[in-house]
């Protein structure tokens, strides 16, 4: 699929990133690949924050009991042809919670919702911070994939168990944390209801797709973090847009952009 719009978005995000964070320039000036203390008063260094409250995406190992909440949004630019010509796509609200269990272990919770499409996941993860700017994380999440709509020609529900293992590699750049996260999306068993009729899907395979998202987390003086990111989702059309249950097992790649704030 071709995404002329995606190219435009990528340029826009690129430009935005050059304008937005002074911290990026500071990070660039810092020059060194090693984690450094913040050179400005307005933001904390990644290393400092990683050891206090941690980050949602940058693999960090805060002390036990340290928690993070996050409120964000996610937008998928899906080809209308995959969506049966339905060109309107709303952003999803994303809520995240993270509780450090100490020694690099974390408890995680995640919800994203577009009201009619929802994912709720609980998980555990382990993060490892080396002595340098690099850090690594692994997590497994499990939960539910749920869609429901009554009205607008629908009396439909779809529900499935979802499993999402993920690996993250992080790089500290002054007061910016870059993290590349790869996730495997597994869903099954999955059932759907239309009216009073229940059924399963043809070609139902647990492998639903994968995602690779680059997150940019920007520290602030208060210890909060604002983040944005972008990446590629490669999923079955069914995951991308459940409402009409297209059964093709083919995988489709589309851009995802995310942004939010970590408390």
């Amino acid at each position: 699929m071709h995404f002329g719009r995606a190219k435009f978005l990528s340029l826009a995000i690129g430009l935005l990133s050059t304008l937005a964070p002074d911290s990026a320039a500071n990070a660039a000036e810092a020059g060194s690949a090693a984690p450094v203390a913040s050179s400005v008063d307005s933001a904390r260094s990644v290393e400092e924050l990683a050891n206090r409250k941690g980050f949602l995406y940058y693999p960090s190992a805060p002390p036990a009991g340290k928690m993070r909440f996050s409120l964000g949004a996610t937008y998928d630019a899906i080809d209308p042809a995959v969506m049966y010509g339905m060109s309107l796509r709303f952003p999803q609200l994303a809520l995240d919670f993270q509780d450090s269990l100490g020694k690099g272990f974390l408890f995680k919770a995640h919800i994203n919702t577009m009201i009619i499409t929802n994912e709720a996941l609980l998980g555990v993860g382990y993060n490892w911070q080396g002595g340098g700017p690099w850090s690594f994380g692994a997590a497994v999440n499990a939960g539910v994939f749920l869609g429901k709509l009554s009205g607008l020609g629908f009396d439909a529900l779809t529900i499935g168990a979802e499993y999402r293992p993920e690996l993250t590699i992080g790089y500290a750049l002054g007061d910016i944390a870059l993290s590349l996260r790869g996730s495997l999306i597994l869903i099954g068993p999955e059932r759907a209801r239309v009216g009073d009729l229940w059924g399963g899907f043809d070609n139902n395979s647990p492998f639903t797709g994968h995602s690779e998202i680059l997150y940019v987390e920007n520290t602030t003086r208060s210890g909060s973090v604002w983040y944005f990111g972008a990446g590629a989702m490669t999923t079955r059309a069914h995951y991308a847009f459940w409402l009409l249950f297209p059964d093709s097992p083919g995988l489709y790649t589309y851009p995802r952009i995310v942004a939010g704030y970590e408390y």
Partner: protein
Amino acid sequence: MNTKIWAFAMAVGSPFFLADCETAREVSIPGFPDGGLLRTGTALEREQLKISFEGMFTVSKGNSLLGDQASVITKPGTVSVLTNKNAGFAVLGAACLPDQRVVVEGYWQYPTRSDAGLVRLFVSPPEVAQDLCNGEEPAPNTNLTLTGSYSDGNDIPTKPLELRWAHELKEWRGRFFTVANHGACLVTDHCGVSTNSIETIRLAERTGSNAIELDVRVTRDGIPILFHDPMLSSSLVRGLFCNGQVNQLTFAELRGSCMMRYGEQIPTLKAALRMMIDETELEGVYLDEKTAEGVLPSAYLVQEFEAELKARNENDDPSDDRKFGMFIGIPNDDVLAGWHAAKATLEAENETRRNNGEDEVPIPRCLLEYDADKVIAEECVAWGPTWTSGPQPENVQKLRDVGIATVFWTINESQFIEGFLTTSKPNGIITARAATLFHTYQLIGTVPDPIGVLQ
């Protein structure tokens, strides 16, 4: 600008360029490298195919390809084997060879995957093959066997395949409508033909459809064409200058700039109707009007072709008789307003004809998609509800009681196809899995009473 910032920007932007990749795999429909044995034989006649091959077959070898049973139907020039295993089908030709054997060969495919291969079968017992070669039309019985092999990809077939005729098919022509969803396959399938193209109409018939739903839009100069989206989406069309909204381009501009996904031309509605009437045995078409502006020009075309069919069916030559129903599809209130306006225009024209002592031209029939009560109020002949509201057996029966047919759209999942067939017993279902629907109807469906839609 600091180079690190640029690097950072590029890192953020790079996934979008990754997402720009063409993800649809190249489609290659397998074929025998030398044209196969069909090239050396004499093709069987249409009536021979219809009388001697159609039926429910037991798959005695090759169950991993077709399952335990397969429906065999015929179309002009082809024999189609339809299963509910991965929506699979085989499209085959049949010919008498110089040694008095009858070969039935072609390709099989699972359209939702890229799996496909070759099939080569021979008719047995030899006496049946001989009768066919002598131009006769032997009725099938339980001795009829199609024996041979199949392959994966373009390999020469070596895996055993055998189908034994079991019994006749349930009545479907004129009774149950397997309606192709703007063609044989979804955009996301691997059939090698584009949705709403002439080529997909042909393939739809061969994969089990006896009617088709097509999407109608109009160009800036008022030509009705077949196209689904309002925009020239790159998933549907190709061309360096093929951009913008369909209704902002003239037909000449559209043809000059765009070709469909697999290289076909975007067809006019007129060309598609002509092709379906002249080159297929499809029994009907449901014109899914995407805009109100398309209703009147579509209605004019329907009137034109209905007049032609009427003349053919009423002349003294029964060989050119052709039954083909054309229905204006109304998916929403905007198009309904267009339908009201079109009807007013057509009725005014009939008024003029009456005043001039000329024959009236019948107003085209309509199919309304969304509200069962409006179907009755608008005097449409069919209801086309979305399957996502469920089987609604009460509404289906209510309309059936007043002579209105129900055709659900668009059911592709086999479990739901089974559920709708047994719960609502509709007159038809729109699907991109015609092979699955046809075969499932044959296995568990109820033959609907004739409802006069095609009369």
